[in-house]
């Protein structure tokens, strides 16, 4: 009899722990890992900034994962500007070997179009080295 009670207590305990874990998982989902997500749009920096500057709604690209290539026109801290029209906040710092004028491909989340500075903003950007499928 005692043995059975112990077993039930154990099962109940495990179920409780699982429920707490599940609740935690639902309330605090893991943050998005843009670098691991599927790319939805691939294009040059000029094409993206050209299209977004003309759009009345940014829903097509906002919050989506994009793969963008272009020449670096500016480097500031952990930010890179591509072709004067796309500003990317890197997930980590900008690769120290990179210089203005270098051609790069990045994967990032599109935040939206900033019409005050006329620039597309990207964040959580990672460098995709040796990308050739342009």
């Amino acid at each position, binding site marked *: 009899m005692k043995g059975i009670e112990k077993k039930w207590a154990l099962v109940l305990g495990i179920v409780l722990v699982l429920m707490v874990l599940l609740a935690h998982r639902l309330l605090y*989902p893991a943050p998005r890992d843009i670098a691991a997500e599927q790319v939805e749009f691939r294009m040059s920096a000029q094409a993206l900034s050209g299209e977004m500057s003309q759009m009345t709604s940014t829903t097509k690209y*906002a*919050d989506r994962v994009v793969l963008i290539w272009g020449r670096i026109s500016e480097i500031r801290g952990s930010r890179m500007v591509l072709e004067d029209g796309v500003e990317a906040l890197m997930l980590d710092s900008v690769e120290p070997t990179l210089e203005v004028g270098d051609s790069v491909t990045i994967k990032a989340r599109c935040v*939206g179009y*900033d019409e*005050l500075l006329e620039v597309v*903003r990207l*964040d959580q950007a990672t460098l995709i080295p040796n990308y050739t499928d342009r």
Partner: protein
Amino acid sequence: MKKKEDMNGLGNVLGGTFVWGLLIGLLSLGTVHGQLYMDREGVVVFEASEKLFEPVKARNGSVSVLFDPSDNSLASLALMRGFRFENSLMQEHFNENYIESDLYPRARFKGILMDFDLDLADRTTREYVLEGSLEIRGVEKEIQPRVKVQKIGNILSIQGSITLLPKDFKIEIPKIVENKIAKEVVVKFDFKLRGDEGH
């Protein structure tokens, strides 16, 4: 005939010089009075936390700000999707349910830094009133936050905070989370605007 052509040529050259002189004059006027100050990485943090509950707080470090000292006008833009929360579920709710970021992707501010004089600005922190209109979710509201202004080299620092009410921007907080979100939202901003040239 040839002489006439020469004369015309001279006229063109003179006319050209005049136009160029005017252009250069206008451009130099522009640099003296129209030098813009810009921040591409302005910081805006908002907090609507209630004691005992999980902090409701987000930060956007990619806010753009332009300041024109010739008329003390200031314009700022923040992309709503640029606000990052610790809790990603909260971020999702913020974008989908409260702000509706797909419909209203940006917040804008346009205003005047009242009684400010760039020539008098220096390392000493002085207080001014930043008067203007803030647009969130397509709703405009007049605000007059007090801001602290300081100028170090060619960097103009503008810091301040405002208290906003969600209902002012037609943001409805559902009953079920009413206790967890403060009635007043404190928005702090920290702008470091860089001038084109050192003064």
